[in-house]
């Protein structure tokens, strides 16, 4: 089978599994996990083979060929002549539309098109791989839940939606599955919907995400208005001309193919808003900690490893768009770094193990945003690198937390148990591995990816120290399969050049003024502090949970024990990549070379930022020192007998309530947004009831009244019908004749 046919299988198999579970779930009973597990397992195998295929066709090496295989399943809907580019609009830039009529009207065609490129292949492998382990783990975790089939149907559905999201080659399709993963997330957070907290958390997640979705919708509209297409890839119009897709080879090769300025920045910021919603960044991060009300495997899969990375994926995918808007880029970094710091601070005082992990997720996602915002090839690949390692170790930590929660009878408050290392040794060891990876201790996975992120920030703050390889990476991009010849020499001009020179005089928007070395220096220091805080809260959790005298809450009963093998096996499997993935991928540089063949990263504006991969000893030492300091502080506070001690209160003093209440951000939103909205809603409801309803009832009464009149004619007497019909026809004739 060709790679594109295989690609279809990745979403298709989980979809079939979901349908099978929905149809036959009740009948399967305690075996309801079978379709989902096997469907996702098969999808995972296919996804891994796709990674290999993609890696082969990119050729590897320093200058990989862009890999971009698009399969159009079918055209869902088409509107002819929907868009007529004006002269001078980016959609009509000569050279982006090859052919005589660059200004010809073009259709809005919504194709169900899937794409395969390194970024997609990587994401698919993560989604299906973690999905498989989580599904296996859930067999044990969910085993006596009444909603057993429902859970597996939802997990399979989620894997389907998420695979489609990362494989879609069209912004509209991305939007559709953006919503679909949101819906799956809603259903899984509210899985135990009879619990009021769960229902409330699900609603909160959904509503907060709507804010982001709004940004995505408007962003997609703007993209359509600006570029006249929604496809990522180039398409062939009926008359043989090439319609350049937004991220297609044609536009990528064109240095001035992307819009900067106000419109470009607006698009980028709207997409950023969407990403903030899905990836729980400030100011839309509030839903993620509450989302921990869902079953722990769902938290591991959706709210740690995969769905929350959709925002990272979106921005990485749209890298060329961002490269044209330095102001938007720096905003991404500022939001990311701030989120990382704030979430880490809040995480230091949480007592709920899952909430610690939730804040840690927000914080780590913030790192990835910070890295994306640097707008360098290193930054983009580092973000995806960290996404990959984070998926492994965070899923490991969540599943470990789930294992603890499972054996503690549902209790997750760290103050109520301790010393569990004797009781559940496998969980303890694997959790420790995950924590070392999260804290960024060499040689665990998180160390290398975090180091790359710090390096990318550092290179922006101290550009002289890093010799940006400007001009070395001139690329001659060809479009094989389209024309077979070089279309554009890639020069070095246009808006994309601004990203490297902070003090660009032609700053298009006010945001561009933020692109200054001292801002980046500040961001770097914030990231470094966050690294220390990360190590602190992680090991605080480890010490409180696993060290000290054995204490078990009474809910656990007398059968507190290590989890069954079906749960510990995924832990052990995940512990391997959590340990080794960073070292292997970093030392061989295979991931960064692989990702560099993603079309979005082959835009000249991205390529020119490529730097030779160097291991930054200075940064590594700084990062490790910060982490070590955090661990030591955590040990002083919480190791051993002090695991439930009040040290934190002494250290933080008046700060503690501030952090414990999550910096009052929720309360702020309630006061500033929710309450006023409720007041407006109340007024609107009153207005609605008193005034609008009156009108509506009047309007609704109209057809009914008409019907009542017409019904009079419907007497049931055939002679009256005949008469009415003939009179009607005569009336028609008379009116027509009279009009003459």
């Amino acid at each position, binding site marked *: 089978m060709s790679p594109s046919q295989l690609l279809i299988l990745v979403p298709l198999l989980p979809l079939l599994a979901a349908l099978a579970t929905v149809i036959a779930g009740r009948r399967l009973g305690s075996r309801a996990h079978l379709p989902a597990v096997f469907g996702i397992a098969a999808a995972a195998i296919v996804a891994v083979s796709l990674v290999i295929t993609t890696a082969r066709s990119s050729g590897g090496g320093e200058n990989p060929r862009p890999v971009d295989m698009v399969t159009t399943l*079918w*055209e*869902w*809907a*088409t509107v*002819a*002549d929907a868009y007529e580019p004006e002269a001078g609009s980016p959609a009509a830039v000569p050279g982006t539309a090859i052919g005589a009529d660059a200004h010809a009207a073009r*259709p809005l065609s919504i194709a169900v098109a899937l794409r395969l490129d390194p970024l997609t292949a990587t994401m698919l492998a993560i989604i299906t791989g973690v999905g498989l382990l989580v599904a296996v783990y859930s067999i044990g975790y969910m085993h006596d839940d009444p909603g057993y089939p429902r859970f597996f149907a939802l997990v399979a559905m989620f894997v389907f939606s998420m695979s489609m999201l990362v494989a879609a080659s069209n912004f509209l399709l991305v939007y559709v599955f953006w919503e679909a993963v949101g819906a799956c997330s809603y259903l899984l957070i509210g899985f135990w919907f009879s619990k009021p907290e769960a229902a409330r958390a699900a609603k909160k997640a959904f509503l907060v995400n709507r804010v982001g979705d709004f940004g995505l919708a408007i962003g997609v509209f703007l993209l359509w208005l600006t570029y006249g297409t929604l496809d990522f890839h180039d398409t062939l119009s*009926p*008359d043989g001309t090439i319609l350049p897709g937004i991220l297609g080879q044609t536009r990528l090769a064109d240095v001035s193919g992307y819009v900067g300025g106000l419109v470009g920045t607006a698009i980028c910021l709207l997409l950023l808003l969407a990403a903030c919603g899905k990836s729980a960044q400030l100011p839309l991060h509030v839903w993620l900690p509450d989302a921990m009300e869902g079953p722990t495997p769902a938290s591991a899969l959706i709210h740690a490893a995969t769905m929350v990375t959709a925002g990272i994926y979106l921005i990485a995918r749209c890298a060329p768009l961002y490269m044209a808007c330095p102001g938007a880029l720096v905003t991404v970094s500022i939001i990311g770094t701030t989120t990382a710091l704030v979430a880490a601070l809040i995480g230091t005082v949480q007592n709920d193990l899952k909430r610690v992990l939730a804040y840690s997720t927000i914080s780590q996602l913030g790192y990835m945003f910070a890295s994306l915002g640097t707008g360098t090839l290193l930054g983009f690949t580092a973000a995806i690198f960290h996404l990959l390692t984070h998926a492994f170790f965070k899923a490991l930590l969540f599943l470990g937390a789930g294992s603890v929660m499972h054996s503690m009878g549902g209790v997750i408050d760290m103050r109520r148990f301790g010393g569990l290392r004797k009781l559940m040794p496998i969980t303890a060891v694997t959790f420790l591995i995950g924590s070392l990876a999260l804290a960024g201790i060499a040689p665990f996975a998180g160390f290398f990816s975090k180091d790359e992120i710090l390096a990318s920030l550092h290179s922006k703050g101290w550009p002289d120290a890093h010799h940006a390889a400007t001009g070395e990476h001139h690329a001659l991009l060809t479009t094989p399969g389209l024309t077979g010849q070089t279309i554009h020499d890639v020069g070095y001009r246009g808006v994309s050049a601004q990203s490297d020179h902070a003090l660009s005089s032609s700053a298009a928007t006010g945001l561009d003024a933020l692109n200054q070395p001292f801002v980046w220096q500040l961001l770097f220091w914030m990231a470094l502090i966050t690294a220390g805080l990360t190590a602190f809260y992680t090991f605080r959790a480890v010490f409180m949970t696993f060290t000290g005298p054995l204490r078990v809450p009474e809910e656990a009963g007398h059968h507190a024990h290590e989890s069954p093998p079906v749960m510990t096996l995924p832990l052990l499997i995940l512990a391997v990549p959590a340990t080794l993935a960073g070292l292997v991928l970093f030392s061989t540089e295979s991931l960064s070379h692989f990702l560099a063949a993603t079309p979005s990263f082959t835009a000249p504006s991205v390529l020119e930022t490529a730097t030779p991969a160097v291991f930054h000893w200075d940064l590594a030492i700084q990062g490790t020192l910060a982490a070590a300091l955090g661990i030591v502080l955590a040990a002083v506070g919480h190791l051993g007998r002090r695991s439930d001690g009040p040290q934190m209160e002494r250290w933080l003093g008046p700060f503690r309530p501030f952090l414990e209440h999550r910096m009052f951000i929720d309360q702020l939103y309630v006061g500033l947004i929710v309450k006023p909205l409720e007041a407006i809603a109340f007024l609107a409801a009153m207005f609605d009831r008193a005034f609008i309803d009156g009108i509506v009832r009047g309007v609704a009464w109209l*057809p*009914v009244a*008409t*019907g*009542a009149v*017409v*019904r009079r*004619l*419907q007497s*049931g007497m*055939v002679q*009256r*019908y*005949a008469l*009415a*019909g*003939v*009179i*009607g*026809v*005569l*009336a*028609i*004739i*008379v009116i*027509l*004749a009279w*009009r*003459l």
Partner: protein
Amino acid sequence: MTTSFETFLLLAPELVLILAALVAFLASAFAGLRAGWLVAILGLGLALMISGDQPTAGAAVSSGPVTLDGFSAFMRMLIYTGGLVLCLVQAGDRFRAAVQTDSGGVHRHGSGEEAGTFLILLAGLSLVGLANDLVLLFVGLELVSIPTYILLSLKRSDAAGQEASLKYFYLSLIASALFLYAVVCLYGLGGSTSLAAIGSQLRSLGTTPVATTVVGTITPSMAAVLLPVTLGMALAGAAFRMAAVPMHFYAPDVYQGTSPGNAAVLSTLPKIAGVVVLARLVALAIPPLGNGQPVGPVAETFLAELWHLVAVVAAITMTVGNCMALMQTNLRRLLACSSIAHAGYLLVGIAAAAAASSSASSLGGNSLTAASASLDGLGATLFYLATYLAATIGIFGGLTYLGHRWPEWSATSQDRPPLEEIETIDDLNGLASTNPVVALSLAVFLLSLAGIPPFPGFWGKLSLVTSALGIDSGAAVFGDRQSWFIGLTVVLVLNAAIAAGYYLRLITAMYFKTTDKGTQADGGLSAGLAMVVCLVVVLSFSLRPRGLFTSASEAGSTLTGTLVTDVADTMPGPDEPIDLTMQASLEEF
């Protein structure tokens, strides 16, 4: 015009149907109902195969009173596939009134005559689509009507059934008589029974000094007097078949008084006939492409009157249908009102086609851009017709399959009371738990009829609205016609909103209400099969509307583009470049 062996060759599928009908009639003496429907299905399958072999789009073949062009081929395909599914519905229609004789005894379910009658109905309908001659058109229409009377009285022998069939009979007679007036007037205008000849005469009126035909000399002023009568009467004939105002009165009474299987036939097949008649009427004023014949003022008036008329009737029809439907509690009455409303939607496309054609004519008759605009109106109507057919047959198939339900009874009482007919909306309560598959299918069909995306009804309404808004949209000055069609669109959209009210009421009943009555689903399994087939069709059209749309707009454009002259076997060369442009514009879609 000569009728030759070739004519019969063209009509081979219809002849097969007639033969199959004869076999079914004969077989009814020996075998039961099932054998009859088996013959019907086999005959239809054979007819489909034969018609598939015949030349279709591109080359219009015309022989004698018959024309096989893209339009009639599309219609034939629609009629035969629809007919095949309707066969299944009819075969599964075990309405109780037909089962019990007056003496209380039970005889076999229906009779073999049903199948034969139904086949003749289909053959007649197919003739309507193929007719290039007034006489054949009228005969075809009668060949639709007369079997319908028989079907109505065969299925249901109780008083309500007799009342329904008599009502339909009388009103249909009046409609036929009125339509016959239109036929006569057309003959007077054109001096020939051939539609092509009438069209060419109509277009030349007013451009050449005086036209003389076999019926005498026609002057434009005479034509101006004849036109309103012609249009009014022809519309009356079409309106009866489509159940449009002012000939819609029979629909609720007749649907209610017959079996669901018959209601399925009544709400779909005559609509096709009505659409064909109106489409042929529009095509009269449009010169065949490549003909280059100028269009006279009389043809202009003809089109202008036609689209004004159709637009007004469309607006009134959908409003009346929907408002009446809001008040209904009886299921089949409600669906009858909905069928009236859908006739109104279908007319919107016809009006748009007529209006677009009149602008084409005023631009000199051969403007390609205008011709492709008219393609939208008729194509949209055909597309809408197909989606309406799929959903409506599906609904009635589901109702036929359900058949009856148990009345309320307590287990302590001795005898189980007789089954009750499913006739009110309340009878559907709780269907989602008793018959989940049927409930889901019905919900999908209802949503499609209501025009909820992504179901095909939505694509249909969308293309109707697009075609209506496309009229004069490129014009520099905001014209009179544009405001007419914007108004019509507004009425359509408002009506769609009203319609959602009663469609959703049915879904509410099925999904959110409970009942203590059981549903037995005692209809034939074949009706259930028909419902599933329709469900598959509807779902596949929601995912891929494009294929159907392409063929529908191709069919529409062959009619408004190339109504062939009388004896020409194939269109001469000049239509080739036009074909290419058409292809291109379709590709773009």
